[in-house]
């Protein structure tokens, strides 16, 4: 059961071989068994999930269903869900109950999917290891002493350990793709503006994007059909016509031009990872694709640019957590300023504070031009790199992350080394392009991800490119030990 695809589960539900309540209970039991150690979920609420499952069963009984009706999906705890505790993995929102539904949550609800619980993450999505969570670190199901990646580490661990059928993630600089790579999953960050940001707690507004995390590209296509769509409540949402993201699945890849950026295969890349990615490219050659060497010359600037822009936006986005209206407020304080200072000192973790400080600094009078404006200019150059590259190829491929999953605690005190985890993923966010990671093999029993970058709105083609590979490989079907 737990290894069935979304499509198979859908068929079983529709033909009443299993009820949504039974399926939901199966996953709830697995969570009860595995989550105490793995810590992939921050909040599980069996009553709520089972109530939704009952509704789904009623929908199925009347025949009014969608592809996801009755299927239990885990939601990253960054999405506000009405009546659900929504923490963003921060002490600041430890007891915050969602007063409304995020658009993404609403879309899954309308599709009849079951909200299985809220998954762990780096605090306010700031991190690449899930170690900044106020609710504790998450274990990588492939090696419990290692991190699952981040910030969507809880979703990644939950999907890999079969604690849910699929999950949502969000990706500001690699937060879907890097954990997907480290946990052996498929993860897709769509074109910026395709999925609504309404109700998705903001980290860096111009970069944040929601996307699916699942075991296969086919599963992701079904998720995309639900998650994506214009939302008038999000001014940056794109008024792009609805697409069927499954429509390209199965098309041959003959003549597909794959660009390999030389900057993605240089210094800093683990040798084993490089070999595995090359092997995946060879597989594509066999599938009829043509390989083109390209260059993304400003790649090395993407990390410094990102660490100016993302903290700048974050420093402002996180100002609302002031202890006045909701969330944590210090118990003891003197005047108003003291209340602010103590509340925020207590409510935010070290990484969040670091980014607020960086962001405040780069926006300050006298520094704004040198940092923020300069970074915006380079951001345009980085987007231009991709624009030029897509004149030569249809998709770009390379590693998702420079290494496999690292040990818990290994990089926790070294922010720069942690930031380098996102060296291959960040530029995609800066350009607003869609990016995806698919499992491409194992190095020392740890999963390695292949990154596939597409042009704007090219998700359907990218999903087929991933799907074609998953038809001739079985990396995505491997299961970690000790979770059966």
């Amino acid at each position, binding site marked *: 059961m737990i290894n069935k695809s979304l499509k198979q589960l859908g068929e079983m539900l529709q033909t009443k071989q299993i009820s949504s309540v039974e399926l939901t209970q199966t996953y709830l039991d697995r969570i009860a068994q595995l989550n105490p150690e793995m810590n992939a979920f921050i909040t599980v609420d069996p009553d709520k999930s089972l109530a939704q499952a009952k509704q789904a069963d009623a929908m199925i009984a009347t025949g009014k269903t969608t592809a996801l009706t009755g299927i239990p999906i885990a939601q990253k705890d960054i*999405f506000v869900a009405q009546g659900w505790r929504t923490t*963003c993995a921060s002490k600041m929102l430890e007891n915050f109950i969602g007063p409304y539904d995020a658009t993404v949550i609403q879309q899954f609800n309308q599709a009849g999917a079951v909200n299985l619980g809220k998954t762990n993450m780096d605090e306010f999505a700031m991190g690449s290891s899930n170690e900044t969570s106020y609710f504790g670190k998450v274990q990588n199901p492939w090696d419990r002493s290692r991190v699952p990646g981040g910030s969507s580490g809880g979703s990644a661990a939950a999907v890999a350990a079969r604690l849910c059928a699929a999950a949502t993630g969000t990706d500001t600089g690699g937060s879907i793709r890097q954990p997907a790579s480290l946990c052996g999953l498929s993860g897709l960050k769509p074109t910026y503006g395709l999925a609504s940001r309404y109700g998705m707690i903001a980290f860096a507004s*111009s970069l944040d994007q929601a996307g699916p995390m699942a075991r296969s590209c086919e599963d992701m296509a079904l998720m995309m059909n639900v998650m994506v769509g214009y939302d008038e409540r999000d*001014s940056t949402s794109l008024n792009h016509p609805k697409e069927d993201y499954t429509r390209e699945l199965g098309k041959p890849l003959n003549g597909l031009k794959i660009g390999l950026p030389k900057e993605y295969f240089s210094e800093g890349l683990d040798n084993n990872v490089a070999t595995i990615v090359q092997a995946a490219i060879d597989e594509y050659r066999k599938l009829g694709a043509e390989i083109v060497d390209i260059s993304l010359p400003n790649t090395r600037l993407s990390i410094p640019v990102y660490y100016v822009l993302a903290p700048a936006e974050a420093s402002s986005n996180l*100002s609302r957590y002031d202890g006045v209206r909701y969330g944590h407020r210090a118990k003891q304080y003197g005047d108003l300023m003291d209340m602010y200072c103590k509340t925020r000192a207590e409510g935010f973790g070290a990484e969040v504070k670091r980014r607020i400080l960086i962001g405040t600094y780069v*926006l300050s009078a006298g520094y704004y031009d040198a940092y923020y404006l300069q970074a915006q200019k380079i951001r345009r150059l980085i987007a231009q790199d991709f624009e030029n590259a897509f004149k030569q190829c249809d998709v770009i491929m390379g590693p998702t992350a420079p290494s496999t999953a690292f040990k818990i605690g290994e990089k926790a005190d070294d922010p720069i080394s942690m930031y380098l985890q996102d060296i291959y993923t960040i530029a995609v966010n800066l350009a607003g392009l869609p990016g995806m990671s698919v499992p491409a093999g194992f190095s020392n029993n740890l999963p390695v991800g292949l990154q596939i970058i597409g042009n704007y709105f090219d998700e359907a083609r990218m999903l087929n490119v991933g799907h074609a590979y998953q038809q001739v490989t079985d990396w995505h079907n491997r299961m970690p030990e000790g979770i059966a």
Partner: protein
Amino acid sequence: MEWEVVIGLETHVQLQTQSKIFSGASTAFGAEPNTQACVVSLAMPGVLPVLNKQAVQCAIRFGLAIDAEIANRSVFARKNYFYPDLPKGYQISQYELPVVGKGHINIQVGSGEQAYEKNIRITRAHLEEDAGKSVHGAQQGMSGIDLNRAGTPLLEIVTEPDMRSAAEAVAYAKKLHELVQWIGICDGNMQEGSFRCDVNVSVRRKGEEKLGTRREIKNLNSFKFMQQAIEYETRWQIETLEDGGKIQQATVLFNPDTGETRAMRSKEEANDYRYFPDPDLLPLAISADDIDAVKQHMPELPEAMKQRFQSQYALPDYDANMLTSSRAVADYFVAVVAAGADAKLASNWVMGNVAAKLNLEEKSIAASPINPTQLAELIKRIQDGTISNNAAKQVFEAMWNGEGEVDSIIEAKGLKQVSDSGAIEAIVDEVLAANDAMIQEYKSGKDKAFNALVGQVMKASKGKANPAQVNEILKKKLS
């Protein structure tokens, strides 16, 4: 050496929209605290702003009214600071690229012989959201926050430092206050905070080019206070400088009880607002079509209406000016003329008796007990000779007091004018017979005596004789 005061204004005009500038919450004034605070107003995690198109149309209207450049691309920026009534920790405003650029407003200052006109340059006008309100002492020992007002759309209108006296500043503020109501973008209610002025004041020696250091008087919500505050501030600055002191750039508040201004914070304590473009909102694009669409619904502007009144109704400059000083007065006047009244008579009545009565009773013209049609009926009775001007005043009084319609009052009070020349002649003869002395005076060249005789005839007719006829008959008899 003489001193010169230099004044510039920043005015926050609350726009008359149904909902807030970035959410669907209502903007109605006076609701129970926080009942008009939706999840966006409360800055709940995850919420996003969506720009209210009506607010943009208001800004375009204003731009057209002051003959300004309207930016085809403007940008919303975040102004970051912490305050309990600012729920997001930043205010969405416009900084580098405002929606309305340079424009101008013509003001009339003073009255009578000293009256003069002046052109005040508008630097810019930009859209922004209002903050909520702190309510101190709502509960014992605690402050409350009311976020009903948070997110209410404002247009901030900034002038060049073009004003040189409190009178000019007040004339500008009044003109702006009238204009924003005229074009229907603001209700003008100053008590409720719909129109608030910050006044920048500095002084310099006359002839000096360089501006002095300014102090900003915040949040003036009455013209009287504005006048007092500027006068006090000007005196204070001059005295400080004459005593050898220096002016520190500062924000000051006016205390109406003491009539004094006092510094709130100095520039050293000023915030670094860390403005940057709001990534949640796309740049605001305004096309020529958008502007045309607003133009089609623009009311005739005061200046154009004034010129039309002069050419169409042959009204003197003074009348045209007064009648277009407010939209309500202009509308009233136009309605009186439309109902058949002579334009000049209508103008006299609107500016004269109607205005005086309204002033006395502190009423707006919209609340006048005599509507334009009724006033027109009254004026028509003067035009057709039914009643004299004097009688008309009595009828007006009676109508004001709700005693009925024009004709029934004329009837009831017996005010109908006597235009029967035989009857008037009889009265004239009576008066002449009894006033020989006056006749002699008149004949010896004293014109005053003639007027006295007219007065006597009018009196004898109880005011009902047609004055023109009285004049004519008297002249004939005395010649």
